[in-house]
């Protein structure tokens, strides 16, 4: 903890702004060109997840699943004692059963999870998710504005939209599958990343009460001090939640893999943004308010 006073977070933040902006631009380009790799939750179609008692190859499985009358070529991914088959078309009950029967001939201990969503439903899910993100942002802006001031609210929102977007960007860049649990993860990250930010803002607000900060330099020192004072806290809290999410990722069930992955990525960005983005951004907003004071020497 002795390094506390030596780190100039405000100064460092310039480099992190550049990093975040670069990643945002990259994310935007990927999103615009490739979009997201939507799962059936949003795209309509069927997803067949099979747990096997032995390993099967794609060639062994193919005849079993191609027997059904379907125009699209399904995509098959093989894991350890697991197979995932994706159809862009919604399977009917009969087709569901035909696939099951085919696989069961190869492995009578196979267990299935089949998800089918139709297009209209998928659109509705996506629409609701977007509304949910927007409304939670509004709610947070409102709450933080009341409890703190609008500059804190604005900085907090930028930081949390940043976190949420970074997760979306990483998923787009690495072509990771976006399903319903991904949306849950993004919403949770929004709720969680604001926690870290608020802890630091709370400290800034508290420190503001001691003595007057007349110049930008004063404020800068105050922000650096506040971030340093809360740094260990932020790191510890981020660490504990990270541990929870991390173990869900490596050990948790297959169907929440994407949720856990999104959480892990989001938590890392959440901790990063609350330290290097949110507070310096608040300073930037506050600086503009302070300028008139500096230009009138009468008040010195």
């Amino acid at each position, binding site marked *: 903890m002795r390094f506390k006073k030596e780190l100039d977070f405000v100064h460092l933040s310039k480099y992190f702004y550049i990093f975040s902006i670069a990643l945002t631009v990259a994310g935007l380009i990927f999103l615009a060109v490739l979009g997201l790799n939507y799962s059936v939750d949003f795209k309509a179609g069927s997803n067949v997840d099979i747990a096997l008692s032995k390993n099967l190859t794609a060639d062994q499985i193919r005849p079993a699943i191609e027997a059904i009358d379907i125009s699209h070529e399904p995509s098959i991914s093989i894991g350890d004692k697991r197979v995932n088959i994706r159809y862009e078309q919604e399977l009917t009950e009969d087709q569901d059963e035909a696939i099951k029967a085919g696989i069961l001939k190869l492995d009578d201990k196979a267990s299935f999870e089949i998800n089918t969503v139709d297009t209209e439903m998928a659109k509705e899910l996506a629409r609701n998710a977007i509304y949910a993100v927007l409304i939670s942002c509004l709610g947070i802006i409102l709450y933080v504005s009341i409890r703190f001031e609008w500059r804190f609210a604005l900085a907090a929102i930028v930081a949390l939209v940043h976190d949420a977007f970074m997760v979306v960007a990483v998923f787009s860049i690495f072509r990771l599958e976006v399903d319903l649990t991904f949306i849950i993860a993004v919403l949770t990250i929004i709720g969680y990343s604001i926690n870290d930010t608020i802890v630091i803002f709370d400290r800034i607000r508290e420190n503001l009460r001691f003595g007057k900060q007349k110049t930008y330099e004063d404020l800068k020192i105050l922000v650096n001090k506040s971030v340093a004072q809360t740094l260990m*806290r932020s790191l510890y809290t981020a660490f504990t939640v990270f*541990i929870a999410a991390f173990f869900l990722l490596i050990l948790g069930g297959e169907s929440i893999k994407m949720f856990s992955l999104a959480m892990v990525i989001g938590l890392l960005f959440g901790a990063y943004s609350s330290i290097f983005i949110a507070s310096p951004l608040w300073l930037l907003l506050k600086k503009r308010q302070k300028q008139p004071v500096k230009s009138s020497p009468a008040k010195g």
Partner: protein
Amino acid sequence: MKRLMSFIITVAVLTGVMVFSTPGLLDKVHLGLDLKGGFEILYHAEPMEQGGELTRASLIKTAESLEKRANALGTSEPEVTTEGTNRIRLKIAGVTDEVEVRKKMKEPAVLTFRSAAEGDAAETYSKIELVGSDFVENGAEIGRDNLGRPEISIKMKDKDKFAEITKRLLGKELAIYLDENQLSAPQVNSEITAGSASITGNYTVESARELADTINLGALPLKLTEKYSQSVGATLGKQSLDQTLMAGLIGSLIILIFMIGMYRLPGLLASFALILHTWLLILVFVVADFTLTLPGIAAFILGIGMAVDANIITNERIREEVRSGKSILSSVKAGNKSSFRTVMDSNITTIIVAAVMFGFGTGAVKGFALVLIVEIVLSIATNLYFSHWLLTLLVKAGKLNKPKSFGVKESDIRAL
């Protein structure tokens, strides 16, 4: 001494209650079908015929009818709920013959009156004379015949049609079928012109009531199409449950070890509060009869991570106060006070997000949000109030008076 005693008694009693009740509680937790296998279907309901009307009442009737059918097929605890104006969600766990169940669910029960066509074997009837839509909706009632036996009366929409049929079939049987099941095959004794028919037979009041209900339900003209379906095999569900629980257990253990290593005795108190928090959450699940799903477990584990935050924020704050040279008691007081606001602020913002998720979500999202909200409320109670109380009790009892017990080195303390 009094304070120390109340501390020891509180901890001992709570530990006892938790240890003895946990196995029973865990057995009573209602598992979602993603954890025990089963299937979920979201139906879109629309009128059977074009121009027909879809009312709230007909939707509820259809849902009831689905539930009855599921029960009749011997499935355990089917869950049928209506959603919005035209949707019905059906959840059935532990089904062995899924195909059969899904087929039976969707098919509208068709009520037909049939007569023997030429070439039919004895007591089989294949010529359909009347169909479900020929009857007045909800027109089946039970009554008693002259001998006091229960009978079911049905009303026809078109009197003349019925009159023609009964005249033609005089002395022959007019069999009543629900789907392909023959309910009864009464003989037509006279031409019926009043537009209502009675079904008599060896019915008890109960079986007559059931048949009348079935006829009423069967005649209900709502067409169901599957909008979303999820089916999970029992083995896969069990596997998900085991994996996720294991992940949660290991994650939680590491968090507890971290807390104790970092904050010593206060960390131990925090760990106790965390365990109490988890136990209370399970209790809420059982008492409120929530269904635990996979996203629910994820929220559960994540919530533990977040509940730790409250403890870390408080303990870090107390350490800071200790370092500034205050006495332990005033450090604990000041630390509790100033961290309270921070913890509340951060918890409330998370509740805002969870409430939005609950409002906009369906199924899995709603479940996740609900767990998160319950968890935050419990966390405020246990990790804020209860943990503060325990800590203050110990400090006042004089058992926690060295900076070392808070993980603070003597050398870090500034002189006042």
